């Protein structure tokens, strides 16, 4: 009987009451484990580049300015908040925060740059303890990502070639 089923459907609706959340006026609190924007702690980071080598989206760039200074730059353009960087970091320098409202007109708002003093470390990459064989740091040694053009350089090399990297993403900064 169709009338009966219509009544049943009406009951379902009435029982449910109002469930719409008042978002964005107030946001529902996110659970403890929520993976939001990763936050990098320069005080803890030892510059091992483990996060950079294991980021599936290639969002973390590393460049050595000189023997002592290493720059670690998180771009935040296409980060998928997967949390792999936080997983592999041996110093727990990365926290997956609870921030999710990260939409912005200026991508530079999300970018994080760590200027790391490397002391006398020879940057062998060995301080990065890979969780499994598959996470082996493929880029041990000097790192020269193309920070200017925000591009990951796929092989570890001592200098950058002069040719411009293909710009896969033109975003106003």
């Amino acid at each position, binding site marked *: 009987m169709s009338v009966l*089923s219509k009544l049943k*459907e009406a009951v*379902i*609706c009435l029982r449910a009451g109002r469930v719409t959340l008042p978002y964005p006026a107030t946001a529902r609190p996110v659970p403890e484990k929520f993976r939001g924007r990763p936050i990098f702690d320069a005080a803890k980071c030892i510059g091992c580049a483990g996060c950079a080598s294991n980021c*599936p*989206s290639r969002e973390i760039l590393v460049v050595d300015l000189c023997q002592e200074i290493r720059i670690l730059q998180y771009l935040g353009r296409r980060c998928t*908040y997967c949390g792999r960087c936080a997983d592999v970091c041996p110093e727990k320098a990365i926290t997956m925060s609870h921030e999710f409202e990260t939409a912005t007109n200026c991508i530079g708002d999300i970018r994080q740059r760590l200027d790391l003093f490397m002391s006398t470390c020879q940057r062998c990459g060995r301080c990065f303890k890979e969780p499994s*064989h*598959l996470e082996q740091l493929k880029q041990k040694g000097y790192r020269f990502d193309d920070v200017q053009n925000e591009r990951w350089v796929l092989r570890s090399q001592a200098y950058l070639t002069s040719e411009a990297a293909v710009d896969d993403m033109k975003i106003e900064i």
Partner: protein
Amino acid sequence: MIARERLNQLKEKFGPAIQRADLPGDSRLFVFVEPSALKAICQHIFRDLDARYVTSIGLDDRPCSGKFLVAHDFAFDRDHLLCSVLAYLPADNPKVDSISDVVPGASWAEREMRDLVGIEPVGHRYLKRLVLPDGWPDGMHPLRKDVPWNHVPAGYDEEREFTFDEPPEGCMVVPFGPFHPTLDEPAHFRLYVEGEMVRGCEYRGFMVHRGIEKLAESVLTYNDIPMMAERICGICGCVHNVTYAQAVETAVALRAPPRAEYIRTIMLEIERLHSHLLWVGLACHIVGFDTLFMQSWRIREPIMWIAEKISGNRKTYALCVIGGVRWDITPEVRAELRQVLDKLEAEWRAVVAAVSKDKNIQKRTRGVGVADMTLVKNIGLIGPVARAAGADIDCRRDHPYAAYDRVDFDVITEFGCDVWSRVVVRMKEVFEAIRIIRQCLEKMEDGPLQVPIKDELPVGRIGVSSVEAPRGESHHFVITGENNRPHRWRVRAPTYQNLQAVPMMIKDQQLADMTISLGSIDPCFSCTDRMETIDLKSGVTKVWSQQELESMTRRGKA
């Protein structure tokens, strides 16, 4: 040993044409055959041995063997066996006999192979470009190994026109999509209509290219790919994540720890729950019954929240790495998940009780979008579409993976072959999913979440894995490679097969039923190049080119 039995059957019939075979266990069979006998062997497997066609894979194997490789995958569902028939093709001018006239479902896969790898299916009757954009230069095949991942081909012709087929005589053309209120993603159907009746259609899809397979083969590494794989689909992402991990694991004979297998099962079923509830809502929305659309999405929301609690995200769980899972199910979450399931079950029971007697919904869906057993067999339809036609197939039972061999559940089948049967199948499957999760929570043993991987993964191993996604079987084919990444990774999502049946499903149906017929396969498409405007006063049709559109939007006015 069913795999050996099947191999012997093939050997008996084809003798020397079978060059070599790999039997890694009783559930997988890889047969390397003479290219000239490939078609006959596939025909025998598909017709005489009654296997189900899964997909075809083309591969540029020149860096390893100096040749091209083509593989046709079949599934012997009753024998719990997945079988690949492979043939090496010469490096210059790779050609292979098309199997699409004996296995109609292979048509798209062969066209894709031709576009992306440049293997010519000889004898294919409809060799229109399928995957590559219209302006892409001829003879340039992106999945070949000598093409870099970031290659921008010279000679891209943005102005190149797509030629549509001629509509049959007496038919009008009604364009449907690429943007249509009931399509969530871009796809274009050119419907041929006679009055109100649809007589046929031409499909044009593949409008979004992300190059995930190419990236995986050239840039990403084994443990990066799962996070990318789950972005293949916006609803059943976890399925691809798990299928990929399993394909690699079977290739290198690695097994995830039992606890990880249970967690994979639970997350896959959580995904099925939210996907089916979403679909029932959408189907109601398409037929204009928004009340139930709202209610079914309301009932779905707690599932999303519990997924968020377990994995940190309501949709992209980022669950698997090779050899295990990343997230544990803690005792608190376990208790909460039980509560969520209890509530969901009670509420869903009420919905099912109401809907199953609702005449309005039935009138819109009974006898609509018919896909019968013949179509299921020919095109290789899967999932709820096949089960609604009485095909008793379900990868969870037929090709058990994760912890499905340790739980008890029913495969729901219906016999109406129409949209209504698909509604019923999905509604009932919700209860089965709840049952499975409950059993997993009960049986889950303590233990590690990942196996330690001590050595590099061996090179050149083949692995296939099928996972029953909410929409049907998702199938991944992996060949392991050097540099910590696969040599070839091919993904076949369920919609790939199911979509090929849409032209047959909507034939001789009312135009108004098109949307629900299409919606009933729960399609998952992935933008367009131009639009058409008609000046109503003068009736002049003008087709806007991409450049005109761009300059218009840049000026900020239309």
